[in-house]
């Protein structure tokens, strides 16, 4: 469906090299922007494209840029969020590994639009092998006059620096990222003030995701209107979806927004169906922080409309029967997956990654983990299930940063949609206790016997 936009040249051998990239139209957006357009015009073009942040929140990029405080006499910064640590998400890594110049080009054009002369790429520490690739790309761009002083003879100058993190999911949150970039613990800041006013070193700052910034080049190339012509409604353009879990072809796919979820899962162009001929049980469509949906609700909304890969369609039904596009980390579960075990796993992740500033988040995640552990290990009590719902409700909305919500939603949604499975664990503790490790044991025990597994099958 559609022609790839971001990944257009990905199959060309040597495309990581500046020369090859350039010969396929690379850096033309930089020339076009710097030589033919004013910074304001570049910003307008991005607004017109309808581009929305690809880091998770989906905030309109043009609007975010317009908030940048341009009256301040302090320097301004652009920070590229390459911290990618949301479970299920591995698209930025793919983009940077294969098309580093796509990002560099986007950073130059975006910096020009924002009047920024220093740009930092905050890259997660575990992606050490990418540092060399990006450093190489930056150096090549510099050698060819696209970075440094007076780029292309204009009076615009720009330096791009890489800054590695050191293993903390919370540093993906934009204000925690800025703290980390300042050499501190990754504790999110209270907002407002927003980074657009008080960001890095208290200066006006824009933080954008890798994929968002990489899309700026193609937008300038094709024009905002043409980009907005792709996709569906307010979900314009294309999106990278990183698909993983129990599917035949996991990987990163660029889709035009509006692709039906069913086609994405079952078409041989994308995930190519569920592994080993099993059945689809559930999907987390936007990275671990968004609500999980059972098979029937991920394929069709509660109104029985086709569910599409757009921000709006995935949110259709709100918290009762919808989810979110989030970062595009698409995790697929077949019938062998135990939703209690999976929720315990994710909650342990959030307990581990909480920065610890807010009591509801710090204590609540640990408490939920304990209760879930009990249930999964056959020691659950009946009131535990409602207790979990209660804890989740008290975390949500009561914290400094959205991490609290992100920790609460997986639990709340798993119980909402798979309550029978939690009840089964409480009702048959002996059966649950026998099942120790691995999906295989689980499968043989539960085939036919598990009262839940049969319910949501297609």
């Amino acid at each position: 469906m559609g022609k790839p936009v971001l990944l257009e040249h990905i199959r060309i051998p040597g495309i990581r090299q500046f020369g090859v990239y350039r010969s396929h139209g690379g850096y033309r957006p930089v020339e076009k922007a710097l030589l033919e357009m004013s910074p304001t015009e570049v910003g307008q073009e991005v607004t017109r494209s309808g581009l929305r942040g690809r880091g998770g929140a989906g905030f309109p990029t043009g609007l975010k840029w317009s908030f940048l405080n341009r009256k301040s006499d302090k320097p301004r910064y652009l920070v590229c969020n390459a911290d990618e640590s949301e479970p299920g998400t591995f698209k930025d890594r793919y983009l940077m590994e294969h098309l580093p110049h796509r990002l560099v080009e986007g950073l130059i054009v975006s910096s020009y639009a924002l009047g920024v002369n220093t740009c930092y790429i905050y890259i997660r520490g575990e992606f050490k092998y990418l540092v060399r690739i990006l450093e190489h790309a930056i150096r090549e761009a510099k050698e060819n006059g696209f970075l440094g002083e007076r780029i292309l003879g204009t009076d615009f100058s720009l330096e791009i620096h890489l800054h590695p993190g050191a293993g903390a999911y919370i540093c993906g949150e934009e204000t925690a990222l800025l703290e980390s970039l300042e050499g501190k613990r990754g504790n999110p800041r209270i907002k407002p003030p927003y980074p657009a006013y008080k960001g890095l070193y208290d200066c006006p700052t824009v933080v954008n995701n890798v994929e968002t910034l990489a899309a700026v080049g193609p937008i300038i190339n094709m024009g905002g209107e043409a980009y907005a012509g792709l996709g569906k409604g307010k979900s314009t353009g294309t999106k990278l979806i990183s698909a993983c879990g129990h599917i035949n072809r996991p990987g990163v796919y660029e889709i035009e927004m509006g692709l039906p979820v069913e086609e994405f899962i079952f078409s041989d162009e994308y995930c190519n169906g569920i592994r080993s001929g099993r059945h689809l049980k559930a999907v987390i469509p936007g990275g671990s922080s968004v609500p999980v949906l059972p098979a029937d609700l991920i394929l069709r909304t509660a109104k029985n409309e086709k569910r599409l890969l757009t921000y709006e369609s995935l949110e259709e039904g709100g918290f009762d029967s919808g989810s979110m596009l989030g970062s595009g980390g698409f995790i697929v579960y077949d019938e062998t997956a135990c939703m209690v075990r999976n929720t315990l796993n994710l909650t342990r992740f959030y307990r581990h990654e909480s920065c610890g500033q807010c009591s509801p988040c710090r204590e609540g995640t640990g408490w939920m983990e304990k209760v879930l552990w009990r249930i999964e290990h056959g020691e659950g009590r009946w009131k535990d299930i409602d207790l979990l719902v209660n804890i989740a409700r008290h975390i949500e909305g009561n914290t400094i940063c959205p991490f609290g919500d992100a920790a609460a939603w997986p639990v709340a949604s798993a119980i909402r949609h798979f309550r029978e499975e939690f009840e089964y664990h409480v009702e048959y503790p002996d059966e649950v206790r026998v099942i120790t490790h691995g999906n295989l044991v689980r499968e043989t025990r539960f085939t036919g016997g598990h009262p839940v597994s049969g319910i949501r099958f297609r």
Partner: protein
Amino acid sequence: MITHRLHVKENRPVAFSEATLKKVRELIQQYPEGKQKSALLPVLHMAQEELGGYLSVDVMDYVASLLQLNPIEVFEVATFYSMFYLEPVGKYVIEVCRTAPCAICGGEEILEYLKEKLQIGVGETTPDGLFTLKTVECLGGCGYAPVLQVNTQFHEQLDQVAIDRLLDTLRKQAADPSSADLTWASQFC
């Protein structure tokens, strides 16, 4: 359970090589004047690699002096981030991803297999000092699960055969001093 560790100095002399010091100075240049604290994370990465594999109090204090920081500023950062080790580790730190996408695709099994093969538990080091086994949260390799890192080098789509091969390779590599590691100092060019 929370264990409180004392901030114990051993007063061993530690210092970067001249080449690394040059890298450190270059890194500081990346940030505005007076903001050299920003270089803390990359410098701690280099320190951990070059000065013994983990961040001892002596190493942290040395980094503090390099960046003109109070020792506590380094200590509080080193304890926040999971890539910094505060205890000695083996030559190869094997970090197995245990988060959901890996866990449902064989991650739990490869962890069990590694424990059995190395005869150690999570957080322990083999008696020969070669391997430390750890679990980590999502490494961003979900589509290539199960995934682990050895000293931040990715190994993906693993099964028991691949693990056997990996351990053999690492053992051979350990015996060969000329084998190159992926170091932070070499990554920043």
